[in-house]
Structures are given as structure tokens and as C-alpha cells.
């Protein structure tokens, strides 16, 4: 097809040349002789005269020339132009054929690609699910829907599969479908799916509503491949992902149904980023009292935000990045007198209330939602969406840029309000970003290390640092209170 186009262009050029030539020929005999500058070699000109303006020697082709008058030459040119036009027409026909064929194949490719993508996604999901299960057995992990690796394609309005983007529709649909399925799986398996509904509007609702929303959310084309470890709120993740995807503020605002609509609109060109970042997995651990997640603060923030904004959502905004078994321990940190104390046994469940990990659905959800909401709010100018917070959290963990910067600001204000930090604490803080840079932290030193790490991480990630710090501070502030 390209070749054809090239030829087409060439032919057009030729024809235009002929036209110009004709013009020149017509004007040439007007005068008996012209004063011109004759080219003298490649670099010089010489003044001269053009005489016999009516005589033209025309190349007929194949080394044949003929001397003729200007008018006759014009006729010859006309005749040649006819030829060129004929060739042009033929080329056009061929091009049309190609185009129609190309369209057909493109559609095929798109669907195929979507299929491929879908497949890929499934794999990831499976992995996440597996990991999730692991945690489950250990304790009741309250998995927050982390930003799933779900490929989030902007899916405008769940219900509406109609996507403006032609090709993407099939892909998006597939993804959406996939997401739904995953979510359903999660829902079934998930213990503590925080009733994301409540809160955060988009997040929870999305989860409940799911399918629809999920689709939407993530699709903003941003595929945040945050490895969401068996996020309970899968859909949330989706929504979160949407958030991420919607780095564009407000664009990926999925959380509430209403949001959905908004999101829908915002769905930008679906871009798929498969980034396998540590999943901020929120694991709710039914641990006894004083179990706190490192990032509980964040959760608190999120929760706070959430509460401020909306009802309760999932508490655990960020799911901790758990890369090694040791990480699990890290997350199970008890808060004793405001300090982090590594827990001896992560299986033992303390009083729910104090446990950070305990996922009192409401609380955790709330927290989670809050966090998300916070984050989201920043990005989306809406605080409440738990989903947002989640997504944001995830983002943070993932070290996503954009929205996160704004988050810290939000978090700070939210720090003022004490969240239900007491109750649900997300064990696994989405220290993913920090975790990511620092693979493993010694267990006993978990609390400090974590904090340090977080701080380090913060320092690293310019964008993230502000957030983390704020979160921690906020959490810390809350804890004493």
C-alpha cells in the first residue's frame, strides 16, 4: 500500500510538471527572443538570448526526437498527460483494493492483539491470585485491591462497550471482560473484600458493580501493572488502575458510579503499560491488637480521607509489597505504644481492633478507601474515593508519578483527622516503592527499617517522597492520638 502511495505521489508530480511545461510552452512563442541567463556548466550563468522560440525539439521516448512548433509540442504534452492520468487511475484503484484489505486485516489484528493481551493479563492475574492465596492461609489477609496489573483500558462507562476508539474497543472489551472475571474470582475467594462499596464511591461501588466499573476504570489506557497481590478488591484495583490510568486528574476517576460516567468520558486513549511493580498488596491480617502495618499511616490517611469524603471503604489503601516471606513479617508489625514492634507470630490474632492488619472490613475498607480517596482526590480532585486512594496508594507504591505528587498534599490535611487507625490496619503497606528499591529488610528491625526505608524511598522518589513522608507522619500523628 505504501508503495502504491509513493507511486501515486510520483505520478502526481509528473503530471504537475507537465502542466508547468505546457504553460511555459504557451508563453514562449509570445516573444521573438528572450534575454536569459544561460547556465554555463553547473556553477555559472551567461547572459544570452533565446531565439527561435517557436521551435522545440521534443523527446518522443526511446531516443526519438522531433522538432516541432511550440503548439505542436503542447499537443504532445497533452497526449502524454493522458497517459499519466491513466496510470494514476490504475494506481488509485489498486490502492483502494489495498485499503479495503488492510482494514480487514487490521481488525483482525486488533482482535488478535486484544486476545493476546488478554492472555497476558490472565497470566498475571493468576499469579496474583496465587500469591494471594498464600497470604490467606497464613492469616486472613485483607487484600485490598491493589492496582491490578490489569490492563486498564479506558473503558468508558461500563455498560457502554462502545468505544470511540475503533480498534481498542475489542481490546478493551476483552480486558474489561477479563477484569470482570478476575474480580469475580477475587470476590469469591477474597475473604475480606472490603466492602469497597461504601466508600469510595467509585472504588467500592465499582467492586460491587464491578464489571462495569472495572472496565472503566482501568482503561484509561494506563495499564498500571502494579502487581496487585490478590487484591481483594480486584475491581477496586481496576478502578484504581483507572485512577492511575487516569493520571490525568479526574480523568480516571472511577470510583463511584457517577464517577464512572466521568471516567468514561475521561478515558483517554488506552495505553497499556505493563509495569510489574511490586503490588501494593493490602493484606488484612487478623492479627491481634497492636498489629500495625507499616503503612498503616497511609491507610489511615486514606481512611480518613475516605471517611471525610464518603462512607467506609476499604481500609487498606496500599497493599504491601511482599516479595519474600520475610516481607510478610515485616508487615505484621505490632504497634506498641506507638512504636513498631515486630510480631513474633503472624498467625496469632490479637484483638482485632488494635491490629493493624485486622481487616475489619469496614475499617480497613474505610481506610483503604480513604487512602485511595486521598490519593485520588489529589489526582482527581476528589478526596473521597476510596478507590482513588487505593489507586493512588498503589500508584505510590508503584512509584507512579503523577497523581502521587498531589497526594502528599492531601494527606497532610487528612492527617489531622484521625482515622480508624485503631481498627484496621493494612498490614502490608504499600511500601512497594520502598520495597522495590530495597529488596528485603531485616525482620527484627522491621519497623525502623521500614520507616527508614520508606524514608529512603521517599528520598529517592522525589515524587513519592513527599507522599510517604506525609503519610507516615500522618500515621504517626494519628497513632499517638
Amino acid at each position, binding site marked *: 500500500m505504501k508503495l502504491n502511495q509513493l507511486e501515486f505521489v510520483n505520478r502526481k508530480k509528473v503530471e504537475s510538471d507537465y502542466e508547468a511545461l505546457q504553460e511555459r510552452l504557451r508563453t514562449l512563442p509570445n516573444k521573438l527572443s528572450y534575454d536569459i541567463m544561460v547556465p554555463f556548466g553547473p556553477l555559472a550563468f551567461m547572459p544570452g538570448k533565446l531565439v527561435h522560440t517557436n521551435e522545440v525539439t521534443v523527446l518522443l*521516448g*526511446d*531516443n*526519438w*526526437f*522531433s522538432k*516541432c512548433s511550440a503548439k*505542436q509540442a503542447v499537443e504532445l504534452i497533452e*497526449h502524454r498527460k493522458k*497517459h499519466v492520468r491513466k496510470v494514476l487511475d490504475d494506481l488509485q484503484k489498486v490502492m483502494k483494493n489495498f485499503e479495503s484489505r488492510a482494514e480487514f486485516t487490521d481488525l483482525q489484528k486488533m482482535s488478535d492483539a486484544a486476545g493476546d493481551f488478554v492472555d497476558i493479563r490472565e497470566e498475571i492475574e493468576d499469579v496474583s491470585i496465587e500469591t494471594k492465596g498464600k497470604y490467606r492461609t497464613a492469616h486472613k489477609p485483607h487484600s485490598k485491591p491493589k492496582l491490578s496489573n490489569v490492563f486498564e483500558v479506558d473503558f468508558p462507562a461500563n455498560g457502554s462497550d462502545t468505544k470511540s476508539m475503533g480498534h481498542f474497543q475489542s481490546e478493551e472489551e476483552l480486558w474489561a471482560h477479563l477484569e470482570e472475571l478476575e474480580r469475580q474470582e477475587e470476590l469469591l475467594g477474597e475473604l475480606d473484600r472490603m466492602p469497597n462499596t461504601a466508600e469510595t464511591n467509585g472504588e467500592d461501588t465499582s467492586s460491587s458493580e464491578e464489571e462495569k466499573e472495572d472496565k472503566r476504570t482501568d482503561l484509561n489506557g494506563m495499564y498500571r501493572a502494579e502487581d496487585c497481590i490478590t487484591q481483594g478488591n480486584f475491581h477496586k484495583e481496576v478502578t484504581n488502575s483507572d485512577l492511575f490510568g487516569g493520571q490525568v486528574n479526574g480523568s480516571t476517576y472511577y470510583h463511584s458510579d457517577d464517577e464512572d460516567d466521568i471516567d468514561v468520558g475521561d478515558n483517554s486513549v488506552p495505553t497499556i503499560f505493563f509495569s510489574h511493580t511490586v503490588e501494593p498488596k493490602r493484606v488484612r491480617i487478623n492479627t491481634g491488637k497492636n498489629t500495625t502495618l507499616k503503612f498503616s499511616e497511609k491507610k489511615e490517611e486514606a481512611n480518613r480521607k475516605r471517611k471525610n469524603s464518603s462512607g467506609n471503604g476499604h481500609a487498606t489503601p496500599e497493599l504491601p509489597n511482599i516479595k519474600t516471606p520475610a516481607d510478610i513479617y515485616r508487615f505484621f508489625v505490632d504497634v506498641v505504644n506507638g512504636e513498631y514492634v515486630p510480631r513474633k507470630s503472624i498467625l496469632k490474632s490479637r484483638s482485632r481492633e488494635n491490629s493493624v492488619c485486622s481487616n475489619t472490613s469496614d475499617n480497613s475498607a474505610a481506610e483503604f478507601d480513604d487512602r485511595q480517596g486521598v490519593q485520588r482526590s489529589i489526582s482527581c480532585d476528589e478526596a473521597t474515593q476510596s478507590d482513588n486512594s487505593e489507586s493512588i496508594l498503589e500508584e505510590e507504591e508503584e512509584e507512579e508519578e503523577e497523581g502521587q505528587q498531589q497526594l502528599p498534599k492531601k494527606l497532610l490535611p487528612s492527617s489531622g483527622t484521625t482515622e480508624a487507625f485503631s481498627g484496621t490496619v493494612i498490614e502490608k503497606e504499600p511500601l512497594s516503592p520502598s520495597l522495590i528499591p530495597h529488596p528485603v529488610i531485616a525482620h527484627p528491625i522491621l519497623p525502623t527499617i521500614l520507616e527508614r526505608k520508606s524514608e529512603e524511598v521517599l528520598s529517592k522518589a522525589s515524587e513519592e517522597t513527599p507522599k510517604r513522608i506525609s503519610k507516615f507522619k500522618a500515621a504517626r500523628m494519628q497513632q499517638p492520638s
Partner: protein
Amino acid sequence: MAEQIQKKLQGELEKYQQLQKDLSRAVAARQKLEAQLTENNIVKEELELLDATNTIFKLMGPVLVKQEMEEAKGTVGKRLEYITGEIKRYEQQMQELERRSEQQRETLGRLQQELQRGQGKG
């Protein structure tokens, strides 16, 4: 046994490749002839458009040689016929080459099968 087959296979493969080359050469030549054909057709038509008053030249190397109208027309016509003849010849050649390359392919396939069988046994 397998080695023999392999050698034979190599030989046949080379022959096949040679045939392919010939085929492509023939195709290229034919394309050139086709271009000349079109051009000569244009020349013929343009000659029709001209009348006897203007002189016709033929470029022979660096020289433009004057020609008569009829002469020129005659020459162009003959050239046209020559070109068409050439094209036909090349067509035939191409068909022949195609047929032979098909045969070669068959033999190649057969030999490959034998080779595999031999290898399997061994």
C-alpha cells in the same frame, strides 16, 4: 546411506536455487521489455500526432541524427514488434523454468523424506 542422501539433497538443492535465479532474471528482463513496449507505443502515437513538416531526430550516442517521418515510423514499429517478440520468448522461458523448479522441489521433498527415514532408523 544417510550421507548419500544428504549429498544428493545438496545437489538437488543447488539446482533448485539455480533455477530460481534464472527465473528471477527472466522476470526482470521481461519487466524491462514491458517498459520499453509502453514507451514505444507512446512514441508511435506521438508520431501520429506530428505531421510531415517537422523533422524527426534519433539520438545515437551523442549525435542527433535526422530521420524521415516514415523512416521513423517504420523504425519504431519494428522496434515494437521486436519487443513484443522478446517478451513472448521470455514468457516461455519463465514457464519452462517454473516447471523445472517444480520438479526440483518434488525431488527435494522426496530426498528429505528419505533422509529422515534413514536418520530415524539410524
